[in-house]
């Protein structure tokens, strides 16, 4: 049976000396807590199904060191690796895949230039093109008759607006319509982050996760808001997600990937243990 995927996400950046580190890591027992390759190995041992590296420097020199990190990781960790952050062109994608990544995640650049999804999917295959969609709830439904209205947990109608540049800029684009479009353009997967939940530890944004999972044929990775293993369970059951991504609950050593999977297994969610 196909299992639900648990995906730790690592925010990779440069330190003052130009070396790569992972931000926000608080493992006490790890020799080199900041080394992305060491962390990738750690999560692999814990049973992570895939890994996501987010290049939060995304500058020219950052990209160069990121490529080295991908190479070292791909040489030692034999599970799928997705790389995102600042990917703008076919050349960026080629460079990252050649370094050993299996997928790239495209966010702002896809909104600005949707053709990038189509073109890259045709060249590299849909399976390696993940579109990251960041969205935010918008309660103004009256002035937005063309948007997809979704009922929130308390029954309030809302639509979800795509935001870019790390959530700083609203676009006026309807997240459900955008998701359908990127599927058509050849995206193989969607990484969905709700800005209303990101960093809250309140759990995934279920209404939008469920809506996209039901409307689309490609897999949905739920992201943003996980505070405990039960939130993962809700993401898979109520949200109908295919995979769940989380950062802090793993980075702080509060739960291991295995803890989450044990919890899910007890509740009859198929996981790889």
């Amino acid at each position: 049976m196909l299992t639900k995927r648990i995906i730790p996400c690592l925010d990779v950046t440069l330190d003052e000396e130009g070396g790569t580190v992972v931000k926000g890591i608080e493992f006490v027992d790890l020799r080199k807590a900041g080394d992305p390759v060491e962390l990738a190995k750690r999560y692999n041992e814990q049973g992570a199904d895939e890994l996501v590296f987010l290049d939060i420097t995304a500058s020219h020199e950052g990209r160069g060191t990121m490529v080295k990190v991908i190479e070292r990781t791909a040489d030692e960790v034999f599970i799928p690796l997705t790389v995102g952050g600042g990917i703008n062109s076919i050349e960026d994608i080629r460079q990252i895949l050649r370094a050993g990544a299996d997928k790239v995640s495209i966010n702002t650049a896809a909104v600005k230039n949707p053709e990038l999804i189509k073109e890259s999917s045709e060249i590299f295959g849909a399976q390696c093109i993940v579109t990251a969609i960041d969205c935010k709830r918008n309660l103004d439904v009256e002035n937005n008759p063309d948007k997809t209205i979704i009922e929130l947990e308390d029954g309030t109608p809302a639509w979800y607006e795509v935001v870019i540049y790390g959530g700083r800029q609203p676009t006026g684009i309807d997240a459900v319509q955008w998701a359908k479009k990127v599927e058509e353009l050849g995206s193989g997967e969607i990484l969905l982050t709700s800005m209303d939940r990101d960093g809250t530890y309140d759990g995934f944004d279920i209404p939008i996760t469920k809506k996209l999972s039901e409307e689309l044929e490609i897999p949905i990775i739920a992201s943003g808001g996980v505070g405990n293993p039960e939130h993962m369970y809700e993401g898979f059951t109520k949200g109908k997600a295919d995979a769940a991504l989380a950062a802090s609950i793993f980075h702080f050593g509060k739960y291991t990937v295995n803890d989450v999977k044990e919890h899910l297994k007890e509740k009859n969610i198929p996981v790889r243990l």
Partner: protein
Amino acid sequence: MKKIVIIDYGLGNLRSVRKGLEHAGADVIISSDPEEIKNADGVILPGVGAFRDAMKNVEVLRSTIDEYVESGKPMLGICLGQQMMLSTSEEGGVTEGLDLVKGQVLRFPHSELKVPHMGWNSIKITQEHPIFDGIPEGSYVYFVHSYYVDTSDRNTLISCEYGTEFAAAIVNDAGNVIGTQFHPEKSGDTGLKILENFVAMC
């Protein structure tokens, strides 16, 4: 040291396959040179991307591949590399494959299930073969594909369930050509063990 050639036809990420084989103690060359291929102890036909484009690139090596397979030495096709070993595929209009194993490549039917079939799924071993020595029934391996292989039971080594039961690993009649739909190079320790078994066969 066993010399393994990964056939390079311009597509895909070959780094992980290479590292996986090196991990298994092989000397790995990435090449499209017919002489290198013929002289290899083992050959890998890798693949991601679209069937038609990949076949177009591999077509020039068809006689080299046929000659290599004829020699009885082992060859492993991975993912699209496996699909190319079949007679035909319906991806992008019916296209001829290498016809090393009789059968066809079909698209997953529309259903409630997501396509591509992406993630870790468990395997059922339907026929013993040295490449799966020490791999327990029910092991999890990593898949990512929208098309699947339909072949005879005789040519199936492993089956997997995703809406329909499909061949997750295949073999030719002579036993030296093997294909896996999943990615051993992305399937953790299980996958590394399979690559190790392949190197041991070479």
